[in-house]
C-alpha cells in the first residue's frame, strides 16, 4: 500500500501548524514520512503534550512529603497513607468519544483510567465520575425557545439528544465498571445548556499498593526485550488523541465515527490480574499502558523517561484486521493493551503468566542506547525519531489571554431588579426537583457500588468512603509460585511482634469530585477557589483530612483569547486553593476544544480530592440521625459583605429567575480552612452525628437534604423532620437567607445536651456557629421573621428522589 504524499492539506488535517511542521523537519533533519507525521500529530496534540496548558500547570502545588510519585512523572500520582501502604489515583476525560458514541466512549474512558492505575502496580479499588450534559428537562426561561428549536430541528429536540447522551454515558460507565468488578462509589452530574452536544465525561480511579510495589513506565536496561500484551490491534480508535484536540462540529461527529473504540472489561480484568502477577515477580523493568495514541505514546514515553531508545517491529504486533498499515498500527487505540519491558532472561515468566491468563503476548522489540524510537515493519524502517524530542519537546504555547466581554455585565448585575421571593415553599420544591440538585439515584443505582465489600459510605452523602483492607492490595511476592519461599517477611504490616497476624491493614479513604462550573464561568478565579473549597469541605464533612487532588481541566478552544483567560485565571484559583488545603495536585488531564456549534462549554475545572479518615468512628454522613438532636450551622448565615448576598450564580437565580449571572459568592480560604479544622475536631470528639455542606440551593436545600437523603435499605428512605428557627435574622431578603450560597457553611447535628458545649467549642476554634433548630417531626418547618414555612417530607422526598427518573421516562 502506498503512503499518501504529504501536502499542506494533510498536515492541516493532522492538526499541525506549518510552524510545527517546520519543527518536525528540524528534529528529523528531513521531511517526515506519513507514519512519522501521524506519530508527531498524536504526540503533539493537546491531549498528550499539554502544549497550550503546560506553563499554567507548572503553577500547581505538586509537592508534599507524602507524595511518592508526583505529577507528570508517571501515569498516575502516588501518595503515602502510612503503614507502608500507598494510593494511586487520577482523573481523565473522555469527552469527545462520548459525544460521538456515548456508551462505548464512556466505557472506554473508565477502562483507560483503570489501566492507568494498575500500570502503577496498584490494584484499582473504586472509581468515581464527573459528568456534564445539556438540560434533560425544559427550563423556565427556555421553554419557549426550546419548542421553537424542536420545530426547526425536524422533531428531535435538544432535550431528547441530551437524554440519549446521558443515558448512554451512564450505562457505558455501569457496563465497564460493573463487569470489571470495582465499585463506582460517587460522582456528580450537572445539567447546563453549555454542554449541549459536548457532554463531559471525567472518570476517576483509585488503587492501592505497598510502597515497594510501585511500577515505573520507563524502558530501562539496554537490550531488554519489549513485550506487547493484550488483545490484537485493530483499526478502532484511530488517532483518538488528535480527535480529542479539535472542536466538535456536527460534521466531525459524523465523520469521526471511526475514532471510537469498543471496550472489553472482561479482557481488561484478565490483563490487570496478569500484570499484577507479573509485577510481583520482579521480572518487569518498565510497564506502560497503551491509552491515547496507543503504541506510539507507550514506546516513545517509556524510552524518553529512561533516556534510552526503543526499537520495535510491527510485524510482531498481533493484528485483528488484515493489511493494517504501519500508520494504523502505531496510531490505533485498541483497548486493554500494555507494553512491558522485561529484564533479559526473564521472558519465560512473562510467557507463562500471560498464557495462564489466556492473553495474547508478543515480543516486539528491545531497548536500545540510541535515544531513538525506531519502528520497523518486516525489517524495513518506517519511523525513526528521537524519543525524547518527540515525547517532551512538543511546542509550548503561551496563548493570548483577554478578559471576556460578558464579565462586564456579570459584574454590573445587582439584585435591585429581582423581587424577593413570594413563594419560598414552591421555590424549594423547584430547586429540589432540578436534576442538578435532585438525587442522582437514577444514575448510581445502575452502578455496582458495593462490589468487593469495601464501600463504607455509598453514593448519596457528601463524599464516598471506602475501606482498604488486606485483599484490596496486589499480591505480594510470596504468593507467586516462581520465587523462593523464604521467610514471610513481606507482610510486616499484617503482623505483630509475636509473628501473629492481625488485621492491621485497614484504612479509610474518602473521595469526592466537584465543580460548580457556573461559578467558574462567572468568575474564573473566585469560582475555581470555590470549587476546591467545596470538595475539601465535602471531605471534612465525612471526617477526612485531604491528602491530594487530581484535576481535569475542561475548556473551550484555547486559541480564543477569552477562553485562554478563563483557563489561566481558574488555574490561578485552583493552585491557590489546593495550596491552602494541603492538597497538592498529583496529576490530571486537560481537555480543550470543548465546543459545540453554539459556543464553548462553561469552563469546568473538575477537581477530585482524596482524604484519609483516621478511625472508622470518624466516618460521618450527611443525614440527620435522631429526633431531638440539635441542628447547628457552622459558618455565617450570610456573607453581608457580598452585595449579592450569596445569590450571584446561584441555583436559585438560574432556576427561579432564569438568570445565570452575578458575581458568585467569594470563598475566603483562610476562614474555610478554619471551618474544616473546627469541623474535624468536633467530629473527632465524637459529638457530630451528621454534617452536610451548603452548596447549590443554599441553606434550605442543605437542611432538606439532611432530612430526606438517608436510605436504610434499597428503596427504603428514612425521612426525619426538622424545625428551624431563623426568625432572629432580620433585614435580610428571604431568598438570600434560604437559597443564598454563601461559602464556608456546614449544617451539623449533635445531641441536644451537647449543643451549648459545641457552640462554645466552635467559638474557641474561631468559627461562627449558631443553633438553627431541632431534628424531629414529620415535616420540614422553617420559621422566619416574615412567618412560618412548612413542607411535607414525603412530597419533598418524592420530588427530589424521582426528578431524574421522571425526566428520563
Amino acid at each position: 500500500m502506498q503512503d499518501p504524499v504529504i501536502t499542506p492539506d494533510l498536515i492541516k488535517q493532522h492538526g499541525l501548524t506549518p510552524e510545527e511542521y517546520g519543527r518536525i523537519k528540524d528534529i528529523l533533519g528531513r521531511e517526515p514520512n506519513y507514519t512519522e507525521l501521524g506519530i508527531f500529530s498524536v504526540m503533539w496534540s493537546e491531549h498528550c503534550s499539554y502544549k497550550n496548558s503546560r506553563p499554567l500547570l507548572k503553577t500547581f502545588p505538586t509537592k508534599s512529603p507524602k507524595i511518592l510519585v508526583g505529577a507528570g512523572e508517571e501515569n498516575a500520582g502516588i501518595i503515602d497513607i502510612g503503614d507502608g501502604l500507598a494510593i494511586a489515583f487520577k482523573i481523565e476525560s473522555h469527552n469527545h468519544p462520548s459525544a460521538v458514541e456515548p456508551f462505548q466512549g464512556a466505557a472506554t474512558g473508565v477502562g483507560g483510567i483503570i489501566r492507568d492505575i494498575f500500570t502503577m502496580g496498584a490494584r484499582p479499588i473504586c472509581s468515581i465520575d464527573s459528568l456534564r450534559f445539556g438540560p434533560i428537562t425544559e427550563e423556565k426561561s427556555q421553554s419557549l425557545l426550546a419548542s421553537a428549536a424542536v420545530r426547526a430541528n425536524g422533531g428531535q429536540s435538544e432535550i431528547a439528544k441530551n437524554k440519549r447522551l446521558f443515558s448512554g454515558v451512564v450505562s457505558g460507565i455501569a457496563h465497564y465498571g460493573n463487569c470489571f468488578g470495582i465499585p463506582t462509589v460517587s460522582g456528580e452530574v450537572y445539567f447546563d445548556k453549555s454542554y449541549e452536544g459536548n457532554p463531559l465525561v471525567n472518570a476517576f480511579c483509585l488503587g492501592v499498593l505497598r510502597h515497594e510495589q510501585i511500577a515505573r513506565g520507563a524502558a530501562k536496561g539496554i537490550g531488554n526485550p519489549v513485550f506487547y500484551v493484550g488483545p490484537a490491534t485493530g483499526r478502532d480508535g484511530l488517532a483518538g488523541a488528535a480527535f480529542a484536540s479539535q472542536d466538535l462540529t456536527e460534521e466531525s461527529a459524523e465523520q469521526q465515527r471511526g475514532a471510537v473504540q469498543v471496550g472489553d472489561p472482561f479482557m481488561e480484568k484478565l490483563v490487570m490480574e496478569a500484570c499484577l502477577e507479573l509485577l510481583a515477580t520482579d521480572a518487569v523493568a518498565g510497564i506502560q499502558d497503551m491509552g491515547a495514541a496507543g503504541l506510539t505514546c507507550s514506546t516513545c514515553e517509556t524510552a524518553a523517561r529512561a533516556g534510552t531508545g526503543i526499537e520495535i517491529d510491527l510485524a510482531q504486533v498481533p493484528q485483528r484486521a488484515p493489511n493494517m498499515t504501519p500508520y494504523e498500527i502505531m496510531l490505533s487505540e485498541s483497548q486493554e493493551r500494555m507494553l512491558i519491558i522485561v529484564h533479559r532472561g526473564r521472558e519465560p515468566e512473562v510467557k507463562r503468566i500471560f498464557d495462564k491468563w489466556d492473553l495474547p503476548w508478543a515480543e516486539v522489540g528491545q531497548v536500545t542506547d540510541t535515544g531513538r524510537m525506531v519502528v520497523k515493519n518486516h525489517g524495513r524502517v518506517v519511523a525513526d525519531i528521537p524519543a525524547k524530542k518527540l515525547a517532551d519537546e512538543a511546542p509550548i504555547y503561551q496563548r493570548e489571554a483577554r478578559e471576556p466581554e460578558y464579565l462586564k455585565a456579570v459584574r454590573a448585575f445587582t439584585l435591585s431588579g429581582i423581587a424577593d421571593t413570594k413563594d419560598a415553599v414552591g421555590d424549594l420544591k423547584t430547586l429540589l426537583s432540578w436534576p442538578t440538585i435532585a438525587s442522582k439515584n437514577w444514575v448510581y443505582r445502575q452502578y455496582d457500588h458495593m462490589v468487593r465489600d469495601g464501600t463504607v459510605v455509598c453514593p448519596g452523602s457528601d463524599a464516598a468512603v471506602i475501606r482498604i483492607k488486606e485483599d484490596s492490595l496486589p499480591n505480594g511476592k510470596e504468593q507467586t509460585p516462581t520465587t523462593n519461599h523464604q521467610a514471610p517477611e513481606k507482610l510486616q504490616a499484617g503482623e505483630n511482634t509475636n509473628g501473629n497476624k492481625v488485621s492491621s491493614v485497614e484504612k479509610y479513604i474518602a473521595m469526592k469530585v466537584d465543580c460548580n462550573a457556573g461559578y467558574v464561568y462567572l468568575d474564573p478565579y473566585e469560582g475555581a477557589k470555590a470549587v476546591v473549597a467545596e470538595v475539601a469541605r465535602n471531605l471534612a464533612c465525612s471526617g477526612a483530612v485531604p491528602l491530594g487532588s487530581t484535576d481535569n481541566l475542561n475548556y473551550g478552544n484555547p486559541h480564543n483569547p477569552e477562553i485562554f483567560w478563563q483557563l489561566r485565571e481558574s488555574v490561578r484559583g485552583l493552585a491557590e486553593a489546593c495550596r491552602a488545603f494541603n492538597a497538592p495536585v498529583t496529576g490530571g488531564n486537560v481537555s480543550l476544544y470543548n465546543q459545540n456549534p453554539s459556543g464553548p462549554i462553561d469552563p469546568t475545572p473538575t477537581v477530585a480530592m482524596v482524604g484519609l479518615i483516621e478511625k472508622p468512628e470518624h466516618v460521618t454522613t450527611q443525614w440527620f440521625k435522631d429526633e431531638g438532636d440539635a441542628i447547628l450551622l457552622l459558618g455565617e448565615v450570610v456573607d453581608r459583605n457580598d452585595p449579592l448576598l450569596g445569590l450571584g450564580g446561584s441555583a436559585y437565580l438560574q432556576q427561579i429567575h432564569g438568570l445565570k449571572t452575578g458575581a458568585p459568592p467569594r470563598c475566603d480560604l483562610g476562614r474555610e480552612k478554619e471551618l474544616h479544622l473546627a469541623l474535624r475536631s468536633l467530629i473527632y470528639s465524637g459529638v457530630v452525628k451528621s454534617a452536610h455542606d451548603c452548596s447549590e440551593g443554599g441553606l434550605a436545600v442543605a437542611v432538606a437534604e439532611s432530612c430526606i437523603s438517608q436510605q436504610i435499605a434499597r428503596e427504603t428512605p428514612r425521612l426525619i423532620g426538622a424545625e428551624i428557627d431563623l426568625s432572629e435574622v432580620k433585614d435580610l431578603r428571604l431568598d438570600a437567607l434560604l437559597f443564598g450560597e454563601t461559602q464556608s457553611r456546614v449544617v451539623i447535628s449533635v445531641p441536644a445536651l451537647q449543643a451549648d458545649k459545641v457552640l462554645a467549642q466552635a467559638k474557641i476554634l474561631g468559627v461562627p456557629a449558631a443553633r438553627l433548630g431541632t431534628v424531629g417531626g414529620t415535616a420540614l418547618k422553617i420559621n422566619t421573621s416574615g412567618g412560618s414555612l412548612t413542607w411535607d417530607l414525603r412530597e419533598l422526598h418524592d420530588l427530589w428522589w424521582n426528578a431524574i427518573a421522571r425526566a428520563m421516562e
Partner: protein
Amino acid sequence: MKAKIIITPKKAVLDPQGKTVLNALEHMGYRGIGAVHVGKYLEIEVTGEAEAVRKQIDEACHKFLSNPVIEDYRFELE
C-alpha cells in the same frame, strides 16, 4: 411485506461476544473455526410501495436499529 434485517458488528471493530463464542467453541473441541461475529436479526412487517419501504427501513436501520458507529446492517424485503 416483510423486511428481514441482519445487524453485525463491523469487521474492524472489536467483538467481545464473538470472541467469547469462538473461545468456547474451540474449548469444546470444534476445529477449523476462523472468526465468529455475533449480531442480531429482526423481522419487520410493513406495508407500502417497495421503493418507499426500502428507503424507510434503511433510514430506520441507520438511525435507530443499528449503531452505525460500530455496526453494519443489511436487509432484504420479501
